[in-house]
C-alpha cells in the first residue's frame, strides 16, 4: 500500500483506531483521501467503513464511550487536536446521511440552516443567493423553485436526499462525507444522486460509504476495501475492480462473501 505525498492528501489517516467500549471497531487504519476525487469505502456490514467516515468530522464524539486514537489530519491539521473547534471542523466537512433527514422546516430554511448558524450571509439577499446556488448545485432548484416555503419533509425521498446535499453544500465545505446516501432511494433517484456526486467532484472532495459495488465503480476514482475493522486494500477504483491484489478484496467484489 503506497502513500501519496501529503500535499495531495486532503485527509490523511495514520494508525487510526476506534474503540466502542470494549469493541475494537477500527484497527490501525492508514488511508489518504485525495482532493477533488471521490473515494469509495466498501466492505461487508460492520467492517468499520462508516466508523472511519464518522471519524473525519468527529461525529463519533456524539457516541458515548467511543474512543478514537491515532493521527487523522485535514490539510495537515490534526482533526483530534485539542485546539480544533468541532463546530468549525464540521463547517469544513459536510455530511450526508443514509436516511434523508431534512429538518422539519421549509425547503428554504433547511438550506439556510447552515449559513445562518455560521453567519455566512450578511443580508437576506446574500442568503437567498447562497440557498439558490446550493439548490442549483444539488440539481434540485428547478423542481422546488416555486415551493421554497413548503416543508422539506414533503419532498420525495430522492428529493429529500438532494435537499440534504444542498444543505451540506450551502456551508461551502471542502470535503463532503456521504454515508450510504442512496440506500433508501429508488434506482431513478439513485441515478440522479450519483450524477450529482460526479459533478460535485470538481469543487469538493468526497468520501462515500456504499454497500453497492456497482455504485462504487460508477462514482469513485479510488476505492478502499474494509474488512473486520481493518483496511485491506486501497487503490484506484478501476484497479480494485479489475485486478484486486488481496484475496479478501477479490472474494468480496466477486460476491463470494459480504
Amino acid at each position, binding site marked *: 500500500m503506497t502513500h501519496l505525498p501529503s500535499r495531495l492528501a486532503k485527509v490523511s489517516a495514520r494508525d487510526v483506531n476506534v474503540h466502542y467500549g470494549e469493541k475494537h471497531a477500527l484497527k490501525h487504519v492508514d488511508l489518504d483521501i485525495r482532493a477533488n476525487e471521490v473515494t469509495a469505502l466498501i466492505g461487508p456490514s460492520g467492517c468499520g467503513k462508516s466508523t472511519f467516515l464518522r471519524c473525519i*468530522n468527529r*461525529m463519533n464524539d*456524539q457516541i*458515548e464511550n467511543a474512543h478514537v486514537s491515532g493521527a487523522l489530519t485535514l490539510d495537515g491539521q490534526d482533526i483530534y487536536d485539542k485546539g480544533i473547534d*468541532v*463546530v*468549525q*471542523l*464540521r*463547517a469544513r466537512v*459536510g*455530511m450526508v*446521511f443514509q*436516511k434523508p*433527514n*431534512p*429538518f*422539519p*422546516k421549509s425547503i428554504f430554511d433547511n438550506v439556510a*440552516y*447552515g449559513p445562518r*448558524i*455560521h453567519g455566512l450571509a450578511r443580508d437576506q439577499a446574500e442568503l437567498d443567493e447562497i440557498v439558490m446556488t446550493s439548490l442549483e448545485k444539488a440539481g434540485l432548484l428547478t423542481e422546488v423553485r416555486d415551493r421554497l416555503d413548503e416543508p422539506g*419533509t414533503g419532498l420525495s425521498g430522492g428529493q429529500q436526499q438532494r435537499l*440534504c446535499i444542498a*444543505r*451540506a453544500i450551502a*456551508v461551502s465545505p471542502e470535503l463532503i462525507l456521504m454515508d450510504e446516501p442512496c440506500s433508501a432511494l429508488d434506482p431513478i433517484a439513485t441515478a440522479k444522486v450519483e450524477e450529482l456526486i460526479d459533478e460535485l467532484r470538481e469543487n469538493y472532495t468526497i468520501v462515500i460509504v456504499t454497500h453497492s459495488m456497482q455504485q462504487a465503480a460508477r462514482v469513485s476514482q479510488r476505492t478502499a476495501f474494509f474488512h473486520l475493522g481493518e483496511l485491506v486494500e486501497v487503490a484506484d477504483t478501476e484497479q480494485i475492480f479489475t485486478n484486486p491484489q488481496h484475496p479478501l478484496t477479490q472474494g468480496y467484489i466477486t460476491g463470494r462473501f459480504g
Partner: protein
Amino acid sequence: MTLFILTVVLLALTVLGYRLGRGRALAVVEGHPRQLHSLPSYHGYWVALWCGLPALAVISAWLAFEPALLHALVLAALPAELQALSDERLALVYNEVRNVARHGHPASSAAVAEAARHYASLRQILFISVATGALALAVAGLAHARARITVSLRTRNRVETIIRVFLIAASLVAILTTVGIVLSLLFESIRFFQAVSIWEFLFGTSWSPQMAIRSDQVGSSGAFGAVPLFAGTLLIAGIAMIVAVPLGLLSAVYMSEYAAPKFRAIAKPLLEVLAGIPTVVYGFFAALTVAPFLRDAGSAIGLSVASESALAAGLVMGIMIIPFVSSLADDVITAVPQSLREGSYGLGATKSETITQVVLPAALPGIVGGVLLAASRAIGETMIVVMAAGLAANLTANPLEAVTTVTTQIVTLLVGDQEFDSPKTLAAFALGLVLFTVTLALNVVALSIVNRYREKYD
C-alpha cells in the same frame, strides 16, 4: 355463606366440564387430536362455558331481583292494618322485618315477628329453588354440550366469539359509566337552567349562590353569574402554567439532551414523584407555607397580599403539574430521530443551536399536547384551590387577591346537607358540566395533536 358454597360447587362443575369436554373430544377421535377441527382444550372450554354461563345468569338474576321480589311478597302478606300505613311508615316496618329476619333483632310486635318468619322462609325457599335450578342447568348444559362434541364441531370459533363478547362487555363498562356521568350532569344542569337562565349563568358577573328558605328572608335572591369563577379558574391555571411550562420544558430538555444516563435514571423518577404527591398535601403546603410567606413578603415591600391569594394557589399548582409537562415533553424530545440531531451537528451546529432550532421545532406538536394536558389538569384541580384560593368570588385579574374557582365552588355547594331541588345545589352540576366540557375539549385537542405527531416519525 350459602351463596359462597353454591359458587364453589358451580366452579367445580365448570372445571369438571372442561375436563369432560376435553376427554370427550379426545375420545371421539381416539387420541388423534389433529383430526379435530378445534384443539381438545377448546372443546373443554366450550363445555365449561355451557356449564357455567347459564347457571351464572340465573344466579345473577336472582341477586338482582331477590330484594324486590321479597319486598312485594312480604308486604302482600302483612296484616291489613299495617298495609294501611303511609309509604314512609311502611318502609320503616319493612326495614324492621328485614332486620329481625336477617340479624335477629327483637321484633317490636307480633305482626312484625310473624312477617319476619315469613320473610325468612320465603328467602329460604327462593334460595333453594335458585340453587337447585342453577345446578340443574349447569349439569344439563354440561351434558348437552358434551354430547354434541364431534370431530368437526367448531368450538374454537365459538369460544373465541364468547371471549370477544366478554372483552367488549368489559370496555363497555367504562364507556357506559362515562356516558352515565355525562347524562347525570346534563339532566341536573337542565333542571338548573330551568331556574336560572343559561345566559345569566355563563355571562353574569355576580356569584352569590344562596336561595331563600322563606320568601321574606333578607338576601333572598341568589346570583348565579359564573364569570368570576371562570376568571378565577383561568387566573390560577394561568399562573400555574406560567410556572410549569418553562420549568417543565427546561427540565425536559436537560433530562433528554444533556443529563448523563446515570443522573437521568435517578432524577427523572424523582421529578415524577411530584406527580405522586397527594394534592391535599400540596393544598396545605400552599395554604400554610406559601400563602403566609407571600403575604409577609408582600407586606415587607408594601404590597397588600390576601392571605388566600390566587398567586399562592397558582404557584403550588404549577409545581404540581411540572411533571405532566416535563414527562410528556421528555418523551417527545427523546422520540425526535437521532438522524435530525446528527444532520444538524454535521452542519457544525452547536448543541444548543441543534436543540432550539431542530429538536424543539420537531417536538413542538408533542410539547403543545403535553402543555394542553397539563392545562386541563390545572383547570380541573380541586384540592389545592379549595385549601388555598379562598371562596370570595372576586372578579379580578390581580393575582394578589383572593379568587375562587369552579371546582372550589362545586365543593362548597355540595358539602353538607343539601336539598336537591334548589338551584344552589343544582348549580354545582352546571359548573361540573362546564368544567367537563372544557377539560374534555382540551384533552381531545391535546391527544389529537400528540397522535398526529406520533404518526409522523414512525
